[in-house]
């Protein structure tokens, strides 16, 4: 039950994550100038989720953390999805300005 096996992430990995975050940022900006219809939102969100995952796994060390920490992160986002999914379940099945 220890987070304390201090895993020292090599600087090279940080720089790699940093570079990919920047590339993905400019990619998402570039794509937003092209009209893809509904896919604009999907692509933007896919890129944002990828970026968030990179930050969580490497910058926040979750990749090297205990199962409990991983469970915490997963649980947090799962609950957020409960909120989103069940609320949207109402909005997409009711005739409210859609």
């Amino acid at each position: 039950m220890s987070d304390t096996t201090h895993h020292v992430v090599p600087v090279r990995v940080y720089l790699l994550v940093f570079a990919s975050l920047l590339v993905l940022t400019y990619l998402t900006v570039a794509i937003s100038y092209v009209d893809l219809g509904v896919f604009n939102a999907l692509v933007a969100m896919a890129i944002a989720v990828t970026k968030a995952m990179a930050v969580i796994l490497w910058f926040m060390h979750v990749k090297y953390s205990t199962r409990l920490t991983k469970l915490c992160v997963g649980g947090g986002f799962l609950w957020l999805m409960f909120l989103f999914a069940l609320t949207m379940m109402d909005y997409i099945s009711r005739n409210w300005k859609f």
Partner: protein
Amino acid sequence: MSTAIESKETRNYLNAGYDLKSWLLTLDHKRIGLLYLFSISFFFLLGGLFAVGIRLELLTPPGDLFQSETYNKLFTMHGIIMVFFFLIPSIPAVIGNFLIPIMIGARDLAFPRLNLLSWYVFMVGGTLAISAALMGGIDTGWTFYTPYSSTYSNSNVMVTAVGVFITGFSSILTGLNFLVSIHRMRAPGMTWFRLPLFIWAHYATSLIMVLGTPVVAVTILLVGVERMFRIGIFDPALGGDPVLFQHLFWFYSHPAVYIMILPALGVMSEIISTFTRREVFGYKFVAFSSVAIAVLGFLVWGHHMFVSSQSVYASLVFSIITYLVGVPSAIKVFNWLATIYKGSVSFGTPMIYAFGFIGLFTVGGLTGLFLAAMGLDVHVHDTYFVVAHFHYIMVGGAIMGYLGAIHFWWPKMFGRMYPEVPAKTAAWLVFVGFNFTFFPQFLLGYLGMPRRYHQYPEEFQIFNVMSSIGASVLALGYALPVFYLVWSLKKGEIAGANPWGGTGLEWKTPSPPPTENFEETPVVTEPAYSYHKEEFELVKS
């Protein structure tokens, strides 16, 4: 044996310091628990006074005692004070604070400073709520429904909202502290499945506090912002959707019901096993049912919105999942009954509360299933049927559990026994008074009396009079313990470390416990509730 305990009493958490500073700056979870005890008792009294106003007005059909605006404020402040400032902190912040570290064999919670901070945060929120009441009150109902709360109400919405917002953080900090402590502070040998069920219940409760409270906090924040700057997040006149407010509000406020009831369910497992001298039947089922209730509780909030223009398809899903919550709740009740069956039952005061709890919680739960039925809900929505249902859970369940817990652990907290005869009298008064107060409200609701009105047709008077008389009996039942418990502090019999013959770690340390809880860190070698056969035979004979 009792002399040995008495000599140890020379050093405990109560006599560790007498000046005000030693209380107001204490980091001891037991003292913080007592700080909460005093504060929430005050809020309970305050919320009760508002209820007195309500019951007096409803004695007669015309609205003759209060104007309708005043009446609106009475039931609103009754609800807000009772829910946010009494029920939600009640068992966790008082009993949980006091017992969780002791039960898991720790010296304190993981973050003692945070624990003290959460009490101060609670007091700041509470002070704001009280000042709102003094400034003339608030009339939105405890649910703050928009756009009335955000646009039209002329009462003190802002001050109250800020108070509730701030208090929410106290609840978050408490839950966070409990979760970390249960994960990281357990004594050697205290594995997950050796934990008392009280701990499992508080673990589940803390999950709800941590995951749900932030959502209601941001919702109230939005209401406040909307009110201040006249923007239209929830105001249909400005393009907003008031139903979105209800989604966000109930995302927390349905699970909040489980913040109130889950700790009481945990208390019941402790009392019942101790007073039947048996291991709780189906330990793992009872443990996991707490977690199941906490998780499922987040998926059912839409059952409050069947008549709020929520889509029928969404309502259908919410309705079905609501029925599912009945399963873990029933598992608990059946397992307690199986524990009592063929147990060596003794009828101490806590056990009377436990029996009362089982009956009232079952009625409250079953009528909840009525309300989860989409068709029937249209008939009884916003009637006294709903009022009766949630009072069976919150008063019949949570407060019975709280009182049971106070009596059960009183000897541990203060080292003295309460007097049995007045205690039993009070327990019976509470049970009888409660049923007289709230059972007639089921009938009233089914007959069609809506909630939140200060006048009603004459044919409803008989039930309302019954209800008001019952409320007086209930009030007597609540007042009595104040006197005999205070009396027992000085005059009660010396309790000794383990007056009930319980098996939990809290009974293995002196009463009252020393500041560090244990003379030396305990090592756990047995599952919870290991009542041995020999002892069982001994007690029986």
